Each structure stands twice: as C-alpha cells, then as structure tokens.
C-alpha cells in the first residue's frame, strides 16, 4: 500500500518544507526563550558552584552577600574555623562595578579571594588560559566574557591589576562576568574611599577640636589612621568536613557567633527564589505566550494545508477511501510538519544561543519536552482539520 501522506507531501513538497522551516524558526525562538530562562537559573547555580562553599556566613539579618550588602569583620573567619566540622573558612568580597577597559568599561563582579591555594573557597575552579593568582596583590583572573586577554591591565579604583589567568562561566547571579583579585586589594577597592574624599575627611577631622587638641600631639594622626582602616569583608565562605551536618553547624554559628548563616539550599532559594524571581517570571510569561502562539500557528497551518486540498479529499471519498485512511494522512502530515519544525528549531536555537550577551542554556530535557509538546500540539491541531476533511461532501469533487 502506498503512503497517502508521503505521496501528498512529495506532490507539493516545496510548500510543505518551507512551511516546516517557518514553523521551525518559531519553535527555535521558543527554545531560545526557554534557554534564556534556564541560563538565568544556571547563572545563580554556577555562582554558588564556583564559590566552592557549603555555607555562607554573613552580617546578622541580611540576605548577603549576593542579594543584599553584608559587612562583617575580616577576623570573623578565625572564630568560625574553631567550630568542629569546619574544614575551611575564607573571607570573600563581592562588588559589582564597571571595570575600565581601555576607553570603555565592562560590567563585572569583582571578587576578592583570600590568598592560599585551590582549596580556598572562592577561588576560580578551573582556568581556560594563564595561571591562578600567585602574588598577594595586583594580579587578576578574569572571565573570558569580560573581553580581557592575558597580560592586559585592569584598573579598579586606584590600583592596576595584571590579568594572569582567564576563566569561563564565572558569573554573578545577574550574569555579569567575574574578575578575581586578591582579597586585600578588593577590600581596598570596596571600602576605601577615593583620594579626594580621604583628603576632605582628613581636613574635616583636623578642624574638629575634639580630635585636634593642642596638648595631645599624635591624637589627630591616630584618629585619621583609624578612619582609613578597612577591616571588613562581605562574607565568609565555609566548607564543611565530610560527615558533618551543615544545618547543625550553621545553627551553631548563628546561635553562638551572632551571625546569619546560609546553607547551600537556602542560598539557592535566595538566588533563584528572590534575586531572579521577577525576571524569571517575566521570561516564563513570555515563554508561555510564545508556546500558545506557536500552537495556534501550527493549528492554522495544518488547517489551511488541509483546506487547500479539500477537493482532492472529496475525490478520495468519492472513490471510496475509508475515513481512517484520510484521517491518518492528515495526522501524519501534521506530525511530519512538527518534526521538521522541531529539527529546524533545535538547529536555530543551538546556533543562536552563543550570540546572546547572557548565557543561554539549552537543556536536553527541555528539548525532549519540546518534542513531545510539538507532536501533541500538531496532533491536536490536526483534529480540527480532520473533522473538516471528514465532513466534506464527496459531491464537491465533481460539483462547482
């Protein structure tokens, strides 16, 4: 038995394929939109993965360090190290800023990492070029997305840093690429004011007679020195020894050290549930509309394709073709159209993804869900067309 659907597709294959490709582009956009959403969530997860921490110790009653600002003294990590079960604890600072790059600037998250080795939480987990930071000052590892190359000089506040390494997919929760610099420099970058305000502050202090007493030499110098110290960091990243319960250690720190502690699931909840919640909903809304529009367009196309050959279907009926054969012909055509659309959509999305400024993550699960959804939508869409085809009067084949 010959395939009716195949014969019909071959008969007007050009129209059919081009319709499929058009549909594919639409599906491609839907896939990309899903990828944008997944990318946003992944940005948050990759930020937590890259930090290499099991828990985050932050200023009491803040959602820091990513979602809110948090400042704690930089010697807090020493008390945390004494808690049983803590394997490593390291200071970290995070500061999102525009980093000068030649005549322009790039938005980047400047991360201050404690000196040490790869075991230290906060270090870039892998490199794509160059080397890790070895000096305690004035070296930087930048994400490739910043556009910096090895050997470039980055100016952050008053200091210049040499790019010694490049990493990939080191991004903040909002997708800004990271620049890793030594902690002490980062503390300066974050907490020390610009030179002009330091000078103004000095003058202001000198004018205050409480601090500038004639009979107490050295008091003014001491006050000014204390104003310019910066013993703060944004968070302490903590890694737990295997076999210990992070929840319990977190509760211990929160209770006895009077700080707020977030474990990995809590932090994920903050990043995904709070930080990107609105933008994720926005994207999700858009995705839903796109899916509905795509489904409607598939239905229209199949309906029109069937209507185009309504006369031929009448002839088929006239010569005694069974309804089932006609129905399966339309269904098969719809499914084939969907498959072409899926293939083209997947190709388009894959090639379009790297062109986006932010990360677009195309998950295989999404692709599979997409495939099933397309087939279901096509099948449902063909129902209307099938009904039309079955209702057609065979007399139309000969009639006007």
């Amino acid at each position: 038995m010959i395939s009716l659907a195949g014969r019909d597709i071959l008969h007007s294959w050009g129209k059919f394929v081009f319709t499929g490709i058009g549909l594919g582009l639409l599906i491609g956009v839907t896939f990309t939109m899903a990828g944008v959403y997944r990318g946003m969530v992944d940005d948050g997860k990759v930020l937590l993965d890259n930090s290499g921490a099991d828990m985050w110790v932050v200023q009491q009653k803040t959602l820091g360090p990513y979602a809110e600002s948090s400042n704690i003294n930089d010697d807090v990590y020493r008390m945390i190290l004494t808690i049983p079960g803590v394997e490593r604890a390291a200071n970290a600072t995070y500061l999102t800023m525009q980093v000068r790059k030649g005549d322009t600037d790039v938005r980047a998250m400047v991360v201050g990492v404690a000196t040490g080795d790869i075991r230290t939480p906060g270090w870039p987990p892998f490199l794509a070029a160059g080397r890790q930071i070895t000096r305690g000052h004035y070296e930087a590892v930048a994400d490739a997305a910043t556009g910096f190359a090895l050997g470039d000089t980055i100016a952050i506040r008053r200091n210049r840093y040499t790019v010694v390494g490049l990493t990939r997919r080191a991004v903040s929760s909002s997708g800004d690429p990271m620049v890793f610099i030594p902690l002490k420099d980062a503390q300066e970058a974050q907490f020390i004011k610009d030179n002009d305000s330091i000078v103004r502050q000095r003058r202001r202090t000198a004018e205050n007679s409480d601090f500038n007493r004639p009979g107490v030499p050295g008091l003014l110098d001491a006050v000014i020195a204390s104003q310019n110290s910066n013993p703060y960091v944004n968070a302490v990243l903590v890694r737990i020894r295997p076999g210990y319960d992070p929840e319990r250690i977190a509760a211990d720190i929160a209770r006895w050290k009077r700080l707020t502690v977030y474990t990995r699931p809590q932090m994920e909840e903050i990043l995904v549930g709070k930080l990107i919640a609105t933008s994720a909903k926005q994207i999700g809304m858009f995705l839903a509309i796109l899916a509905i529009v795509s489904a409607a367009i598939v239905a229209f196309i199949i309906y029109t394709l069937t209507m185009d050959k309504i006369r031929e279907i009448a002839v088929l009926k006239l010569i005694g073709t069974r309804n089932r054969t006609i129905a399966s012909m339309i269904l098969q055509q719809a499914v084939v159209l969907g498959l072409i659309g899926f293939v083209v959509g997947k190709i388009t999305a894959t090639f379009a993804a790297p062109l986006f400024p932010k990360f677009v993550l195309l998950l295989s699960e999404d692709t599979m869900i997409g495939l099933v959804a397309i087939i279901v939508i096509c099948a449902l869409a063909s129902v209307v067309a099938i009904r039309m085809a079955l209702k057609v009067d065979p007399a139309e084949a000969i009639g006007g």
Partner: protein
Amino acid sequence: MKLPLLRRRTLILLAVAIPIAALFGYVVLRSGPLAPVAVMTAHVESRSISPALFGIGTVEARFSYKIGPTIAGRISKILVDVGEKVRAGQVLAEMDPVDLNERIAALDAAIRRAEASIKAAEAQVDDAMARKDYAQTQAKRYEQLWKTRSVSEVAIETKRQDSQVAFATLAAAHSNLVAAQQDLQRNQADRDGLIKQRENLVLCAPVDGVIAARNAEPGTTMVAGQAVIDMIDPNNLWINARFDQIAAMGLRKGLSAQIMLRSRGRTSIPGRVFRVEVLADSVTEENLAKVGFGVLPDPLPPIGELAEATIVLPELPATPAIPNAAVQNVGGKVGVWKVGGGKVEFVPVHTGASDLDGTVQIVKGLQVGDEIVVYSASRLAGTSRIRVTGDPAELLK
C-alpha cells in the same frame, strides 16, 4: 519522461533533507551533554623551581629624628625648610626664651652685687684686723704699765676687753666675707643654669641629614616632646615590607630581593632582606621584613611611597612540576585531570612548593610524562568527553 522528473524531485528533496539532518546530528553531538569539552593538555615535566615571596610595603627611613623642645614653649624661629640638607650641630629652630634673658640679667646684677659685697666684707676684715692690732698693742702697753703700777686696774681691764672685742669683730668680718663669696658662687651657678636652659631652647641637628617635615611655624606653642622638625638620614632608606603569612615560608635575612616602586613602573631595583621582624602583624596576618636597597635610586624615593618586594628563594631540586592551572579541587580533594585513552580521570595529588610564575611541584600522585588537562572550556567531570586542542582561542570561544 516520468522517471527523470521523479528522480530530479527526489534529488532536490535529498539536497534539502540531508544538510538539515547533518546539521541536526552536529547540533545534537556538539552541544548539550554529549558534546566533548575542548581542553589543552600538558605533560608533567621534571624541573627545578625557584619559589619566590611577594610582599608590599612602604619606603621608610631607617633612622628618623623628631626634634622638639624638652619643655613647653613657643617657637620663635625656624631656620630650615623641608628638603634642606643639614649638618650635625646646625641650628634648626629656636624656642622663645620668654623671661630667660631677663632672669640672666638679674643674676648678672646679683653677681656684681655679690662681688661688691665681697669687697665690702674684705674691707671690714681689714678694718677689724687694724682695730684688733691696735687693741692688742694697747693691751700690751697697759700690761707693762700695770707692772710699774702707773695705770689703774680698771684701765688695764678695759684694754683687755677692747682687745677681745677686736678679735671677735675680726672673726665676724671673716664670716661675712665667706658668706659674700658663697653668695657670688650661688648666683654664678644660677646664671650657668639659666644659660644652659637657654641653650636647650636652640634645636640643633643631631646628625647629617635632610629635613623631612616642618610640623609647626614660629609662634606655635609646643608641648614638651612634640616634634617641631622631622629629620631623616637619607642614606639609610629601606622598605618596610609585609608578606602574607600564608605565603611567607622561607623568608629570612640576607635573601636577595627585587624592589619595584609604584612611581617607577616596571623597573626593578635590586635589594636585600635586611631584617625579618620578630613581631608579626596579627591583625593583618602578615609577617614583616625590612628590605634594603642595594644601590639607592636617584632621585631618592619619597618616604611612604608604596613599593613591591619580590624575594627570590634558593632554587629547589628538580621534581615533577605542573602549571597551577591544572590543579583543581573536586569534592574537597586536590588533584588533576589525567588524560588516558581519550578519557579523563581525576587523580588526587600532593602539591609542594610553587613559584610566582604558577608552577607547582608535585610530591605525590603523578609521574614525569603523564598527560594532564591544564585548561578546559568548561568544568570537567569524570564522565566528560574531551577534545584535545592546541589552539588557546578555541577554549575561549
């Protein structure tokens, strides 16, 4: 006629379908979880490394002098300005002596008066002496006359008493003279003291050096010990360098160093570790060391300028060594991704010393010649398929 038409249609159909199918296949295999990760590999080499320590610090003068008055007072004159070279003993500033000069003048007068009193006392002594001699002579004469009974007994007793009074008067005159001399000495000593005090108000340079700061101007009142002038010895500058305690192993006296001054870009000046401080900074978690210049740069760097010091430690014997970019932390274990038969396997390693160029010695876990992943386009996992490439740009795409 029918067949060729059918065949042409099939051909065109295939021409469209095959590229799409091929593209789809490429997309499925080259993206997503099935895609291989582009990596760059290296072989473990046996090489010796020279670990180095990196610290920053500020230029400081080894000897700095804070020159100020020992008692509270007002500055009357400042004779030098910042940057001037001065010699040992040169007068730098003077404090206002207030009433010191007047007090010295008063004492001068007192001394002169004391001298006059001495003269008066001396004259009194002479006078008493003369009276005593006369009284003695009279007494003697009356004694002889008494023997011949030519004077009355009353007369002789009167003369004897006169003589005793004259003796006493002389003794009193002598005492007066001594007192006047003591008075003179006291006044002279007072005057010497005041002159010393006045000399103390003149602030002099203790050594040859350069004026670093002029902290006050004439007319300012200073408390005792407050510095009017800061002076340094410019021939003894050093870097007060701070080294993070995590990377300060091997820091000791005598190691050679490279000093880079912030104002002089990338030119480095040779130096040497002069001293490692006994006390570390417990707040900043840094060890401190003084790094001296081999040859003092000309012009001299300003005191307080930021400087970087790189200390080169002695070369270590050759061991297997790898770039530090290859070392990764997977599940709390430090190791490297070893390449074998197109697959990667995580091998825990023990790392040893490292240098500032990013080479790490491997103590345990790898053999010379092992192929390891140094760079990768994404984070590797044990199940990752890899694609070895030699083009660094491919990893950054």
